[in-house]
């Protein structure tokens, strides 16, 4: 990432990358600045994470015989996961969840909001943005109640609006519900990110696109997108990771009915708490980490191709 651009022969490149210590901080003080954060992260994140990875190769449980004398089972938990239909199911649902609610839902709705709100009247803009943000900052327990009430089979708002009394949305279409829910919940971040990104698009370029008669879509593709590509990638990475690790589906459906909405974090929770299999759940957590890593690498690859 930090590899400086290769000097062009004959034409010295002006190197003024972001990493320039302009205030004269110095490496020693910089390390001092980093120390508290690294210390906390090391203690409360890295250390437990490594420990978790270790638990993943044991058959540790919190109760029962294995609690006293867990034994190292090597990669057995991982081979188990590879053959575990429920894990495959969870993985697939997580992919659906991320694709539907993050990559498509939040991204597109967030961008659409940022795009349309640019020119909206301030009052409209404030109202809409306020609502979207409210959905984002409300505590998740509260939000879960809101949506359970919204989807409720008998007295739910959705059924009242659609006149479909008796439709048990969370039972009949659990993943659709979760995707809609998470789009609602998380769009604010994309909206804010894209709002600030769109300010970087020179108005002159938009105008020249209009002059040559480009359609809205062509303008977006040819003028806007090249400017915000980095933002799109960053945003997609962050919201994908957050969505993939999101636990709030549990609050809505507990993974049900019959595992139909059991995404990986919910599955991990169920395996760890209902089943008590901490070794196995740690192994799955680690697999989730690997999946996250792959997504991040893909993102970096795309980001590098940009330049």
């Amino acid at each position, binding site marked *: 990432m930090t590899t400086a651009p290769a000097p062009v022969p004959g034409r010295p490149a002006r190197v003024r990358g972001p990493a320039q210590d302009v205030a004269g901080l110095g490496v020693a003080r910089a390390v001092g600045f980093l120390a508290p954060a690294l210390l906390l992260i090391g203690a409360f994140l890295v250390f437990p994470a490594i420990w978790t990875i270790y638990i993943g190769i044991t058959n540790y449980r919190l*109760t029962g015989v294995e609690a006293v004398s867990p034994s190292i089972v090597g990669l057995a938990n991982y081979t188990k996961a590879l053959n575990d239909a429920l894990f495959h199911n969870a993985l697939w649902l997580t992919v659906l969840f991320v694709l539907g609610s993050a990559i498509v839902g939040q991204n597109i709705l967030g961008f659409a909001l940022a795009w349309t709100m640019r020119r909206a009247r301030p009052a409209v803009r404030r109202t809409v943005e306020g609502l979207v943000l409210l959905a984002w900052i409300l505590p998740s327990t509260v939000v879960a109640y809101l949506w359970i009430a919204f989807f409720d089979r008998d007295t739910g708002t959705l059924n009242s609006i659609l006149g479909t009394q008796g439709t048990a949305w969370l039972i009949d279409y659990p993943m659709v519900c979760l995707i809609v829910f998470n789009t609602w919940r998380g769009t604010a971040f994309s909206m804010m990110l894209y709002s600030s990104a769109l300010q970087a698009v020179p108005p002159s370029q938009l105008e020249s696109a209009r002059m040559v008669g480009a359609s809205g879509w062509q303008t977006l593709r040819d003028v806007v997108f090249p400017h915000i590509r980095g933002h799109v990638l960053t945003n997609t990475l962050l919201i994908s990771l957050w969505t993939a690790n999101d636990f709030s589906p549990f609050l809505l459906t507990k993974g049900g009915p*019959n595992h139909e909405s059991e995404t990986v974090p919910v599955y991990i929770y169920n395996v760890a708490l209902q089943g008590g299999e901490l070794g196995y759940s740690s192994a799955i957590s680690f697999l989730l980490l690997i999946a996250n890593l792959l997504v991040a690498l893909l993102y970096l690859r795309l980001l590098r191709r940009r330049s």
Partner: protein
Amino acid sequence: MRRISRLSRLAVLGSATVLLLTGCLGSSGDGSGDQDSNRNADAKKVELTIGSNSVKGGKSSAGATFTEDVLIPKFVEAQKAKGVDVTVKFQGDGSDDEVYKQKLALSLSNKAGPDLFSLDGIWVGEFAQAGYIKPLTDTVGDAAKVNDWNGWKQIPESVQQLGSFDGKRYGVPGGTDGRVLFFNKKLFQQAGLPADWQPKSWDEITSAAQALKKLPGVTPVQINAGTAMGEATSMQGVLPLLVGTGATINSDGKWLGNTPQLRQVLDFYKTIYGSGLGDPVLQREAKGRDKSFAEFAANKIGILLESDYFWRSVVEPKEGVAKMADRDTAVGYALIPASKPGAGVKGQDFVSMSGGGATAINPNTKFPQQAWELLQFMNSAEMVKASLNGAAKITQRTDVNTEVLAGDPMLNFVATKVLPITQFRPGLAEYPKISAALQQATADVVGGKSTDAAAKSYQAAVEAAAGKDKVSSS
């Protein structure tokens, strides 16, 4: 790629740390047994903590209120009379049982946690195996001191199972319950069914359901199924049915596999949910059990397999969550029949399942003797009666039951008719997984899978959970 190599370096570092960590797991359990059980026996200043999954103004509010406002002051007073200055703290939680269990286990595995704590009867085995609890005689040190407690005589043998594992007493059981078939007499009357209905076989349940089906907007029978309700499916569904086929979930150290009895139970589910006698959607909702309560109270469900909790706290006319003002006249109850007369476990005609909790002593308590005193005090007739606070509830003590249940025919019915024939779940570490597999099997069947296919996946799940050699089949 530089990043990858950096990560691999991280991995090396990680595996080095793993070696360091190896000592960190599984260090519990050892060493705690050889503590002196008479430590601090003569202390004049004593501190004890009671832990429970109940909290004032929230989950099981009454239990927490009793402990804090009655039990603790009374005990402190009693000890003061003996010249001992006791401070008892109540450490209440209010969460899902699984989360509470996790928290408790985490504390206990670090040799911490409250001195006395309540736990579900089915956890006793796992906790004992993990060394988190010890037989009372070990913790207290003096076998006679424990066994001579006069309270044991008042607690029926079957109820004592709740606090026992491998034939040893690990704790004193709290109250228990029993499962029956509740039915709506108003609907029964409309369907031309008797008010004193008592089915003698599963067929009689289905035929009553067929009659109820003719009433508009009524779900004839609701027997919990599916994974959404978790343990409720096992306790108010599969297990009572299973004992009605003569099988128990664990016998002779082997878990029940894909047996004819299991398939018989699944077939019964199929009959009910496949032919519109039950509402399959209700069974899949996360809040489905609450829904079934509300629907029963609204005269929309004919027959519901539930525990006496339903009577006491759900349709209870004043405080219930789904009040029925005419509960005493409108709600009927019947014993759960075996599939056919005499086909039940131990050749019984009628069956039931019971659950409940126990209170155990932390083996690492600083004051084992005083903790035992508190445990006895907590389970004395006086305190058990006080804990009810005027409400009728089935307690662990026969003497209290005869006194307080006299006014409540339903609970008296459970105490006298159901408890003698009831069964308890095995308190083994694998049980939750087996239970989950059972729930899954019912979910499969209700969802449309064939009985055979569901039973086969069940067998596979049980084998994975317990090991092939520990499963009985066909």
